[in-house]
């Protein structure tokens, strides 16, 4: 090659990375090669910091078809069907340009599902933002919601749920994570690989521009005062074209003309030509000028690493090119044949009759891992796990309850999810705001089974106690799907952290992963994919985000009609509490909102019994013994009861005396966030059967009170004195309207 090359000092790689490159090539890389190597070695693409830690997560199970490594996890759900799901971050772009950042997050995650061969049917989203009353937070919330909504609505994929946390650590570095799931016939599984030399490489969809140049590299550094100048790294989406790409891709797979499929996300064409070659044990050769570009003066390296949206990469047998062209033509989608699969093990790029790239595929796809140091964070030394707040007087509890229900993290998210189409597709049986998990039926695929999906995270608990916080969110997410009646079958994670080069941050990363892994093992729920987002660090204020893993757990219902939501159904029904309550208020809403404290014991998962409790909950729901069911999590027993009452527009009367607990304090019984607890309602005639399901395994199932026609929340203490008495209207009004008022102003 007679190309201009990049000197060792100029290439933006670490010393170890450079060594590997120069040793393998035995020459200086060309400019496009250097750009490709830089982007593929970025944290975002290479997982270089996280790779040594992630193997702690269990990845095997009888249902697993594709685990980590593919674009999305694939699990067998029986009846010849597979569920495909994935969760990913779009944090850095959203912090700068919340509308386009969030929208292209949705665009990207849809492609991940599509490129496995599945029809995407549901979306989820998770936001981590600063305090709600802050104007910058409102600006971000307004536009990320619109970004997720506009994109998802326009492509016609319904929203199945999500979660939002507000905390000052996310003030500048908001975290925007999005998930998607789809279902397919197992035979339609498409893999991102090119196995046969001679097969053609086709690029479908949008033209390639300068948007998203270096997006993956940008997502691999801290946000600084200069980050505004990175705005060009934010991609712009086109959901209308995505809709056509979805239909064309699914039609092509159905027609049997797709050998390999890869979406163009991070690192664009570079990623597609290298990962398909490396996975298939082949090579790829493309002609760069075939790629349609938006600006005439784009340099070859820019074309190779551009992250322009709405593009898909197909590997097709020469004989099938005509057939697939016909499908693309029907949808009026542009496409080009870029080149073909070779047997060289190399990625070769030609441009104007010259070879400008000639790299072994594995050099791009398997960069060396980074060796990160981990040290115990100093802030943890200051925390007192044994701390307990002064017990409030009985007459203070009404106010405490009101304050908690009106707090940022408890109020209704309706203002957000009303902007999402939650109905399109005719799948959603349990919808946003109705239960702990969204439930989708799969009748279109010819089965009565249902899928339950949930996102869960708890950045405050993961900050105060990374191990127990990590284990806790795994338990919570699995509890969410169990509560609606689904057996948790698999999970995928998105690990959002600060700068991994900071040993104290890296320690929290390791501990969170350990906690997640131990809980996943205890629950028998494999991890089938994941995403890591580091460098969520605001250099201006020198603040890292709290450790914020978000996990996506999928559950399976044998009969979707058995699913229950969390609303009280009729007066006189009995309220049953499953599980023991411990003095675990560290990182709880109560401790944060009422006592502004970081102290206290973060809830610990009871690994020995966790799986069994969920199994029994699923059994109770599926035997039709409960009329509603709700997992107890943020805000504790009081919040869970109140949510059930508000949803059913009915009241309750509950006695704390009947709650099995390690304390007699009313505030702790009301607000402890001990895991593995559920509230269920049942008709009188079903009580014996229900209790016996749990009694078999000595799981506490306690009758704690009844649903009432009178729309009041009444709670009695251990001495049978009424300590909380609130009208539903009173508490619901603020809970219902606060977010809308914050965002739109008072009516």
């Amino acid at each position, binding site marked *: 090659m007679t190309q201009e090359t990049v000197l060792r000092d100029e290439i933006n790689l670490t010393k170890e990375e450079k060594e590997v490159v120069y040793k393998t090539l035995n020459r200086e890389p060309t400019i496009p090669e250097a750009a490709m190597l830089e982007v593929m070695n970025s944290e975002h693409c290479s997982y270089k910091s996280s790779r040594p830690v992630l193997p702690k997560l269990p990845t095997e199970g009888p249902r697993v078809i594709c685990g980590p490594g593919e674009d999305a996890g694939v699990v067998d759900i029986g009846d010849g069907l597979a569920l495909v799901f994935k969760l990913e971050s779009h944090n850095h772009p959203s912090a700068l340009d919340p509308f386009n950042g969030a929208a292209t997050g949705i665009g990207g995650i849809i492609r991940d599902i599509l490129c496995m061969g599945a029809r995407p049917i549901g979306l989820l989203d998770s936001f981590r933002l600063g305090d709600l009353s802050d104007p910058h937070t409102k600006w971000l919330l307004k536009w990320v919601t*619109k970004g997720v*909504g*506009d994109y998802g*609505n*326009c*492509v*016609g994929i319904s929203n199945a749920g999500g979660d939002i946390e507000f905390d000052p650590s996310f003030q500048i570095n908001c975290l925007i994570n999005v998930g998607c799931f789809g279902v397919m016939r197992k035979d339609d599984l498409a893999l991102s690989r090119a196995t046969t030399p001679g097969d053609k490489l086709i690029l479908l969809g949008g033209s390639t521009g300068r948007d998203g140049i270096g997006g993956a590299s940008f997502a691999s550094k801290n946000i600084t005062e200069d980050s505004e100048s990175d705005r060009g790294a934010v991609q712009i989406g*086109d*959901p*209308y*074209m995505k*809709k*056509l790409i979805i239909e064309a891709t699914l039609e092509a797979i159905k027609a049997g003309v797709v050998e390999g499929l890869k979406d163009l996300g991070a690192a664009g064409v570079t990623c597609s030509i290298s990962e398909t070659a490396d996975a298939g044990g082949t090579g790829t050769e493309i002609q760069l000028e075939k790629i349609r570009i938006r600006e005439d003066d784009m340099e070859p390296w820019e074309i190779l690493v551009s992250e322009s949206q709405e593009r898909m990469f197909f590997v097709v047998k020469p004989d099938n090119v005509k057939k697939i062209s016909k499908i693309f033509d*029907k*949808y*009026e989608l542009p496409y080009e044949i870029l080149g073909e699969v070779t047997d060289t093990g190399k990625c070769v790029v030609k441009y104007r009759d010259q070879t400008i790239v000639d790299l072994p595929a594995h050099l791009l796809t398997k960069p060396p891992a980074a060796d990160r140091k981990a040290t115990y964070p100093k802030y943890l030394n200051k925390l007192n796990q044994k701390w307990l707040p002064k017990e409030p007087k009985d007459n203070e509890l009404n106010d405490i309850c009101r304050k908690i229900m009106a707090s940022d993290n408890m109020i209704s998210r309706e203002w957000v999810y*009303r*902007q*999402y*189409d*939650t*109905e*399109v*597709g*005719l799948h*959603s*049986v349990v*919808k946003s705001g*109705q239960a702990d998990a969204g439930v989708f*039926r799969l*009748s*279109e695929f010819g089965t009565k089974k249902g899928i339950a999906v949930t996102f869960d995270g708890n950045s405050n608990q993961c900050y105060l106690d990374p191990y127990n916080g990590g284990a806790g969110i795994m338990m919570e997410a699995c509890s969410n799907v169990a509560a609606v009646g689904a057996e948790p079958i698999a999970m995928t994670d998105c690990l959002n952290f600060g700068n991994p080069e900071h040993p104290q941050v890296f320690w929290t990363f390791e501990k969170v992963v350990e906690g997640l892994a131990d809980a996943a093992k205890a629950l028998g729920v494999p991890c089938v994919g994941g995403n890591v987002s580091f460098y969520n660090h605001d250099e201006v204020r020198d603040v890292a985000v709290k450790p914020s893993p978000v996990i996506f757990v999928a559950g399976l219902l044998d009969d*979707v*009609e058995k699913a229950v939501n969390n609303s009280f159904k009729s007066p006189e029904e009995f309220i049953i509490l499953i599980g023991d309550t411990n003095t675990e208020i560290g990182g709880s809403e109560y401790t944060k909102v009422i006592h502004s404290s970081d102290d206290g014991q973060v809830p610990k998962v009871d690994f020995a019994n966790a799986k069994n409790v969920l199994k029994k909950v699923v059994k109770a729901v599926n035997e039709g013994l409960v009329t509603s069911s709700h997992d107890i999590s943020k805000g504790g027993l009081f919040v869970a009861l109140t949510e059930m009452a508000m949803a059913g527009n009915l009241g309750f009367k509950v006695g704390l005396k009947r709650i099995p607990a390690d304390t007699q304090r009313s505030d702790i019984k009301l607000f402890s966030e001990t895991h593995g607890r559920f509230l269920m309602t049942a008709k009188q005639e079903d009580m014996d059967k229900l209790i016996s399901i749990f009694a078999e395994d000595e799981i506490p199932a306690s009758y704690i009170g009844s649903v009432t026609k009178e729309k009041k929340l009444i709670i009695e203490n251990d001495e049978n004195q009424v300590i909380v008495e609130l009208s539903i209207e009173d508490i619901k009004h603020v809970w219902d309207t606060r977010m809308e008022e914050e965002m*739109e102003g008072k009516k």
Partner: protein
Amino acid sequence: MPMRVIVVQFSGSTCDRDLVYAMKDVMGWEVDLVWYKEAQKHLESYDAIFLPGGFTYGDHLRAGIIAAYTPVMDKVKELAKEGFPVFGICNGFQILVESGLLTGALIGNDTLRFSCKWTNLRVETTRSAATNVAKKGDIWKVPIAHGEGRYFLDEKGLKELNENDQVVWRYVSDDGKITAEGNPNGSIENIAGICNLEGNVVGLMPHPERASESILSPWGSDHGKLYFQSLENYFRRG
């Protein structure tokens, strides 16, 4: 003989498959989903034409307008004028308005936000092909999902629309009243759906296909089925 209908699939339709499901799997009709470029040849051979919801052409310019200028719509207009039944739901309604088959305009919601929620629809007339098995004053639970669904018409036009009994559904509160609270998007006089003078062309913003099975409804209702049953009845009566 079951009903035989065609759903025209435009570029960017997203509720096309849902409509097929409701009419085929729930109603037991024969339904063909046909790409808009191939649809115009066969339109007459069906009992009715459906224009589904979605975001045709990405709602570029304004919702429904580009689809309104596709060749297939010329043929739809011709047939509609001869009395052929044509139904538009959501984006389909927007296309009917943009193509001049129905009067008025559908503009951005008064909240300036997309909104997806279950609404109460009060049946205002039973003379349309989509309400003839209902009773006047019936309330249907049917969800909306749109950003540009606010019906608008000038005073003179409204007077005619009302006098000619062309308002088919209005949004109402839980107790059946025409109130601001029951109006999800600021539509003038709470109008949710209308028909043409003859009653054979019907447009509706909410989605009956999403409300035809009790499992999909938070209320356990299936009022959307009445929309399709009305059509069956319309044909039975000839």
